């Protein structure tokens, strides 16, 4: 499996999920922030998928089982806190990963060096909102905790070995990445007066499943919407 495909699919799918917020965010300013993050991710996806083949064909003409994204990023938006929890888990991972890729000097070094600035901002945005919701009102605290709990079981997959992303040549050691991620997320969660979930992080059947093309129920519906037009008019140029 190509690591570019895995990382590109992560960015593409999360970008689409964030795009679903357009017109529905709690306030106008947050609307812009989520759209900004979605645009950054889409830009990353285009570069990564172009390394693999034709970006449009890859995005619009692959079946569900051919997508290599983490199951975490395909999870539905839920409420705002749920979206922020997903964003926190993923952007901390992505930030740590890209920092290491940029320093590692492998094939992704240049791309990661560009993307790491964007991702640092995504991470900051997610952390700021985690703090505000967690340490806000009783209701926002409860919702933020619920978001962290609901998505916790998808976080183990981020540290499954990915071919081309392991310690050989890329500078990424999954175990070291995982401990850095855990300590960063734990710090933010505790500052937000929340509790780090304690459940299992890799279910028996979900361990690395997204990376192998096994996805959760809502993903097929998401793809149907995303690919509809392209499949209706194959070969058209837009």
């Amino acid at each position, binding site marked *: 499996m190509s690591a570019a495909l895995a990382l590109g699919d992560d960015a593409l799918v999360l970008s689409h999920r964030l795009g679903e917020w357009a017109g529905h965010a709690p*306030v*106008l*300013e947050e609307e812009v922030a989520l759209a*900004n993050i979605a645009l950054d991710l889409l830009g990353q996806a285009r570069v990564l998928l172009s390394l693999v083949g034709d970006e449009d064909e890859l995005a619009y003409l692959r079946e569900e089982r051919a997508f290599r994204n983490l199951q975490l990023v395909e999870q539905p938006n839920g409420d705002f806190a749920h979206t922020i929890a997903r964003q926190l888990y993923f952007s901390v991972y992505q930030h740590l990963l890209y920092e290491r890729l940029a320093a590692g000097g492998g094939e992704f070094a240049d791309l990661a060096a560009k993307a790491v600035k964007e991702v640092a*901002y995504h991470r*900051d945005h997610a952390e700021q909102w985690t703090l505000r919701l967690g340490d806000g009102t009783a209701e926002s605290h409860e919702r933020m905790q619920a978001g962290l709990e609901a998505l916790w079981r998808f976080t183990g997959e981020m540290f499954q070995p990915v071919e081309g992303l392991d310690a050989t040549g890329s500078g990424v050691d999954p175990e070291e990445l995982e401990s850095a991620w855990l300590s960063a997320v734990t710090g933010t969660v505790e500052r937000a007066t929340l509790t780090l979930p304690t459940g299992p992080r890799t279910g028996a059947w979900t361990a690395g499943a997204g990376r192998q093309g096994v996805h959760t129920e809502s993903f097929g519906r998401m793809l149907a919407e995303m690919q509809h037009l392209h499949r209706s008019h194959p070969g058209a140029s837009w």
Partner: protein
Amino acid sequence: MSSSTDWPLWEVFVRSRRGLSHTHAGSLHAPDAEMALRNARDLYTRRSEGVSIWVVASTEITASSPDEKDSFFEPAGDKPYRHPTFYEIPDGVKHL
């Protein structure tokens, strides 16, 4: 926006990378100064490198009254000696 998310208004001043001073760029709503800065960066700078942003709660700003405009700004206009208009500016002096 419902009243439960009735966030205060902030005024945004931006100094562009090559600019000399902060210029009022607009305003926005945010729950606190930290978020106001981030929102201002998204809305008014498009993340250009090397810009400086100030956010000020709108309630902190005191404005001159439009009704007092005459007494406030007029009297100096007819006294040319109050204006530095009789100086030759040497070449090479920038930003005057």
